[in-house]
C-alpha cells in the first residue's frame, strides 16, 4: 500500500503545480477540481470518511460550481464590453519584487516546517490523548459516531460560530446584489433565467436525479449519528440538488424573500434555542438535558442541513451577475423565448 500513498501524494502535488502554472483560468479551475477529488481520496487513506465526503461534496463540488459560474460571468462580461486585450502588461518591477518576496517566504516557511516536522518524529507521544477521552465520553454524548459527537456536543460552540460564518457570507452576498433590485429590475432577473431554454434531455435527467439526491441527503443526515455523515455533507447535497434544479430551469429561492431569510437563519436560530433553554434550569450554556441528547442533536442537524443547503444554494444564485446588456434585452420580444444568448458556461 505504500506505493499507492506515494503516488497519491505526488499526484496531489502535481495537480497543485498544474493549477499554479496554467495561464488559462478555465484550465486552472478544472485542475483544481481534480485536486479536490484526489484530496477526497487522501482523506479516505487517512481513515477520515467524513472528511472525504465533505471534501468531495463541498470542496470539489460547490467550490467548483461557484468558480465555473464566475468564469462564465467573466467571459460574458468580456463579450458585453467589446473584448479588448485580456490584461495590459503588468509592470515588470512589481512582478519581480513579488517573485523575490515569494521566494523568501517559501524558503523560510519550508525551512520552518521541515525543521519542526523532523523534530516531531523524535518527540515522545503527546501529553494528552484525546482519543481515549472521546471514547470515554461518547456514551454520554447521545450519538455513537465520534465526529458528530465532537461537532455537536463536545465542541458545539465551534459549530455554532461556523454556521454563523456561513450566514455572514450569504448576508454579504445578498447585500452586494445589484443595487437597483427594486421591482423594475427584479423581473429581468427572472426573465434572464428563462432566457436560454435548456435542452429537453437535461430537464428530464434533472427531474430524475432530484428526488434521488434528496433521499441520499436525508440518508446521509440520518446516518450521521452512527456512521460518517452529518449536517454539512447533507447540506452540500441539498445545495447540489438546488444547483441542478437551477440549471434545469426549475426556479427555487431565486428572489430574496422573507421566507428565504427565515430558511437561511433557521439552523442557527434552532441551535441557539436548544442551547439556551437548559440555561433556564441552571445548566451551563450548550448543555443538552440528560436523556434528550440524541433527539436534540438530530433536530439541530436537520435544521442545520436545511439552512446550510439554502445558504450554499443562495451563494450560487444570489452571486452578482451582469444585468442583461441593453442591445440584447430589446432583442428578446422580437425573437420569442429561444433567443440564443448564452447564459454563462454552465455546462
Amino acid at each position, binding site marked *: 500500500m505504500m506505493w499507492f500513498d506515494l503516488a497519491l501524494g505526488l499526484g496531489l502535488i502535481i495537480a497543485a503545480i498544474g493549477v499554479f502554472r496554467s495561464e488559462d483560468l478555465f484550465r486552472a479551475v478544472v485542475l483544481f477540481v481534480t485536486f479536490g477529488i484526489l484530496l477526497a481520496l487522501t482523506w479516505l487513506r487517512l481513515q477520515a470518511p467524513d472528511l472525504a465526503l465533505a471534501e468531495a461534496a463541498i470542496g470539489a463540488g460547490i467550490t467548483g460550481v461557484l468558480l465555473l459560474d464566475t468564469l462564465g460571468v467573466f467571459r460574458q462580461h468580456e463579450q458585453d464590453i467589446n473584448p479588448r486585450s485580456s490584461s495590459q502588461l503588468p509592470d515588470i518591477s512589481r512582478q519581480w519584487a513579488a517573485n523575490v518576496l515569494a521566494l523568501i517566504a517559501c524558503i523560510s516557511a519550508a525551512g520552518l516546517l521541515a525543521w519542526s516536522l523532523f523534530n516531531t518524529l523524535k518527540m515522545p507521544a503527546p501529553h494528552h490523548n484525546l482519543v481515549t477521552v472521546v471514547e470515554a465520553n461518547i456514551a454520554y454524548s447521545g450519538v455513537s459516531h465520534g465526529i458528530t459527537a465532537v461537532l455537536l456536543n463536545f465542541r458545539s460552540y465551534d459549530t455554532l460560530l461556523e454556521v454563523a460564518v456561513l450566514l455572514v457570507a450569504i448576508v454579504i452576498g445578498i447585500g452586494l446584489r445589484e443595487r437597483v433590485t427594486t421591482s423594475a429590475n427584479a423581473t429581468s432577473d427572472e426573465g434572464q433565467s428563462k432566457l436560454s431554454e435548456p*435542452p429537453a*434531455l*437535461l430537464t428530464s435527467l434533472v427531474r430524475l436525479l432530484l428526488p*434521488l439526491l434528496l433521499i441520499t441527503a436525508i440518508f446521509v443526515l440520518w446516518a450521521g449519528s452512527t456512521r460518517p455523515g452529518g449536517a454539512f455533507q447533507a447540506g452540500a447535497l441539498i445545495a447540489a440538488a438546488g444547483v441542478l434544479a437551477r440549471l434545469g430551469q426549475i426556479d427555487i429561492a431565486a428572489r430574496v424573500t422573507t421566507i428565504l431569510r427565515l430558511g437561511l437563519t433557521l439552523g442557527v436560530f434552532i441551535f441557539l434555542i436548544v442551547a439556551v433553554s437548559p440555561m433556564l434550569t441552571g445548566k451551563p450554556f450548550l448543555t443538552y438535558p440528560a436523556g434528550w441528547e440524541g433527539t436534540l442533536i438530530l433536530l439541530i442537524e436537520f435544521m442545520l442541513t436545511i439552512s446550510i443547503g439554502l445558504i450554499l444554494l443562495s451563494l450560487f444564485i444570489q452571486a452578482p451577475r451582469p444585468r442583461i446588456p441593453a442591445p440584447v434585452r430589446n432583442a428578446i420580444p422580437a425573437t420569442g423565448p429561444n433567443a440564443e444568448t448564452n447564459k454563462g458556461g454552465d455546462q
Partner: protein
Amino acid sequence: MTLLNIFQTLFITIGCLFFLIGTIGLLRFPDVLTRIHALTKADNLGLGFIVIGLIPSMSTAADIAKLIVCWVLILAASSVSAFLVANQHIKKSKEFKDHDVV
C-alpha cells in the same frame, strides 16, 4: 486462487483495459466530438466490467444493489453531460451552420 478470485481479477483487469483505451482515445483523437465519443463509451463499459467483477466480494444484497445503482447513475450522468458538451461545441463552432440544435 479459487475460481471466484480468477473470475474477479479477470473482469476487473478487462474493465481497467477499457479505461486505458478510453484515455488513449482521449489523447489521440483530433477534435472534441470524437474525444467525447471515446471517453463516454469506453469508460462506461469499463466501469460495468469492474462492477461485475466486484459483485462476488459484496457481502449483502443491499451493497450489490447500491453498486448497480451507482453504475446506472454514472451511465445517465455521463451520457447527458457528453450530449451537452457536444451541443455546446456545435453551437460555438462555425462549420455546423445547417444542423439545427435540439
